[in-house]
């Protein structure tokens, strides 16, 4: 917070021309202020088909604000937000959904006591028959849900079981499969592994990869660099509402990613100071020189040194 010049943020203001392969979703210098509080500022983000873009950050770093903009819950107050290369401004999450941007929130938007297949089609039920006798096409819904889940590699032998009886990873996967089925091109996953154990997290990571392989652009929000590094193609680290790092997989290692996540750049600057303090072991902190990941796609990144006063 005290030393902004060490962040790579200041490095980039080149204004690269748009790539010929237009990204599905693109943020250019986007930001969001809640009254006086600037929760997000000057953030660039691209989501390409068949790629996983990881957004990392500590609590209050602006991750939630970022996804709320992309998923249509909030409107950005600065910068640009483009879908398929065209600027957009969503009024509601339904608008985002109509453009193929689906968000799987932490609470998953499932109803625990309802069967899996009913949850899968909730709000978009398939029906048959004329009006007074219009009824749910249960056979078709079960068939479709089963096929979609299998396509994602999820095998449940009883679609009648309440979603609440599934494990956390399975529930997450059902929510992902549902989003994929209902035409999502961009899938935003809000901390899908946050509440899960190691094994269940693995399950979810596998489905993230499956969604990517089906050609979806995935935005994977997490505060776990290990999870991010397993599936990510691009990494954006948010810190106090601005981008701390934006690098492709080839340009950044797990260790460096972790360092950035932990506020490494800032800590590195403080290393020599911390080394003087008794009881603080600063030897393992990275040197500033170690944090070398290049700044990728930093379009219009306004080099504003003033950090926002608070996160989300």
């Amino acid at each position, binding site marked *: 917070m005290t030393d902004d010049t060490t962040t790579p943020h200041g490095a980039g203001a080149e204004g690269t021309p748009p790539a010929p392969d237009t990204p599905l979703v693109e943020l250019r210098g986007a930001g969001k202020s809640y009254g006086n509080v600037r929760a997000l500022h000057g953030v660039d983000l691209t989501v390409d088909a068949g790629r996983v873009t990881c957004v990392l950050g500590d609590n209050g770093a602006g991750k939630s604000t970022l996804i709320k903009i992309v998923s249509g819950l909030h409107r950005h107050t600065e910068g640009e937000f483009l879908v398929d290369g065209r600027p957009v401004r969503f009024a509601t*999450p*339904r608008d985002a959904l109509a453009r193929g941007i689906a968000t799987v*929130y932490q*609470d*998953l*938007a*499932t*109803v*625990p*006591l*309802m069967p899996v297949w*009913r949850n899968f*089609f*909730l*709000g*978009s*039920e398939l*029906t048959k028959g004329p009006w007074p006798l*219009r*009824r*749910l096409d*249960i056979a078709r819904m079960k068939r479709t849900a089963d096929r979609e889940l299998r396509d994602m*590699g*999820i*095998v*449940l*032998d*009883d679609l009648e*079981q*309440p979603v*609440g*009886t*599934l*494990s*956390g*990873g*399975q529930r997450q*996967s059902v929510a992902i499969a549902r989003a994929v089925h209902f035409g999502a091109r961009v899938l935003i996953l809000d901390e899908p592994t946050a509440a899960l154990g190691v*094994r*269940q997290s*693995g*399950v979810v990571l*596998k489905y993230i990869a499956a969604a990517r392989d089906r050609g979806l652009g995935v935005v994977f929000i997490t505060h776990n660099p290990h999870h991010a590094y397993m599936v990510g193609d691009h990494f954006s680290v948010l810190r106090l509402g601005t981008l701390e790092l934006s690098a492709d997989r080839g340009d950044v290692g797990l260790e460096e990613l972790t360092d950035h996540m932990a506020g490494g750049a800032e800590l590195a600057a403080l290393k020599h100071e911390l080394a003087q303090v008794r009881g603080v072991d600063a030897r393992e902190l990275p040197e500033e020189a170690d944090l070398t990941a290049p700044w990728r796609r930093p379009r219009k990144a306004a080099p504003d040194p003033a950090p926002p006063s608070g996160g989300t």
Partner: protein
Amino acid sequence: MSTAQRAGSAVGTPQTPGPGGADGRAARRPAVLRLLARPEVGVFLGAAAVLVFFLVAAPSVRHGSSMATILYQSSTIGIMALPVALLMIGGEFDLSSGVAVITSALAASMLSYQLTVNVWTGVVVALVLSLAIGALNGWMVVRTGLPSFLVTLGTFLILQGVNLAVTKLVTDNVATDDISDMDGFGQARRIFASSFDAGGVQVKITVVWWLVFAALATWVLLRTRYGNWVFAVGGDEGSARAVGVPVTFTKITLFMLVGLGAWFVGMHNLFSFNTVQSGEGVGQELIYIAAAVIGGCLLTGGQGSAIGPVFGAFMFGMVQQGIVYAGWNPDWFKAFLGVMLLGAVLINLWVRRTATRR
């Protein structure tokens, strides 16, 4: 990984290795447990137990005419218990449902009598009024986000006061005037309050309506989009809204359904007894709610059935009349109700824990 894959192909996700992995455990729950977890099974067993108990304890229950009386008693509770149960599955309460029945009957009776019009005019106006009360309840609950307990407690008190005050104002009495000699009364009575002969036993038509409504409610609940929405708004309102379920519409229409039920029972009361006592109905709302809860509807919403409350209402009717036939002090009725209610709540609690355990 290979062992995991083999295990996974049978049950659960392939990615969860190891014996007894968390995934797939639910699928292996014994069939008996899954059957018991169905909300209406417990109440069915309970109703059967109560029936057998009184068949043994009170020989006169075995007569067809006694059974017809028991079923009639059950149907007047049961018809209202249905919409109350649907509303409960949808996550809300209606404490005004008991007095709303009387409001509807009073409106139909006084309007027809005072204006000297065909009783059907009063019936239709009462229907509109009942639906409007339901819609108002629903709108206030959705709009304010207050617990429906509070909102409908308010409506309950309002209606209770209005029932008494307006009746006294209009008729100078606590009851309405007899409308049995008015135009259309006979016709309306045939629909709302007649009896028919079934194998030498006079059965009230409300029993038939009760079962028809229960079948209809079951179909709506399990086979239509609306039914899906009812479960969803009660189970998790936020999630339901997030996936595009029209939460406001669903809740308001559920309250209106309670209004519809109140109208029907109100019309039955009116055309059975020709007059309406304006102070009645207080306390009935709790009987309806109890029947729904005993019928396996989760007090917090999201689970239940329409067939469960049928058995719940039958248990009430059975106990209420059975005590009389057995020659016991009818004061015991409420004590029985309390015991049944507590038992049902405990079963519900267990079901919820079983269903959501992971």
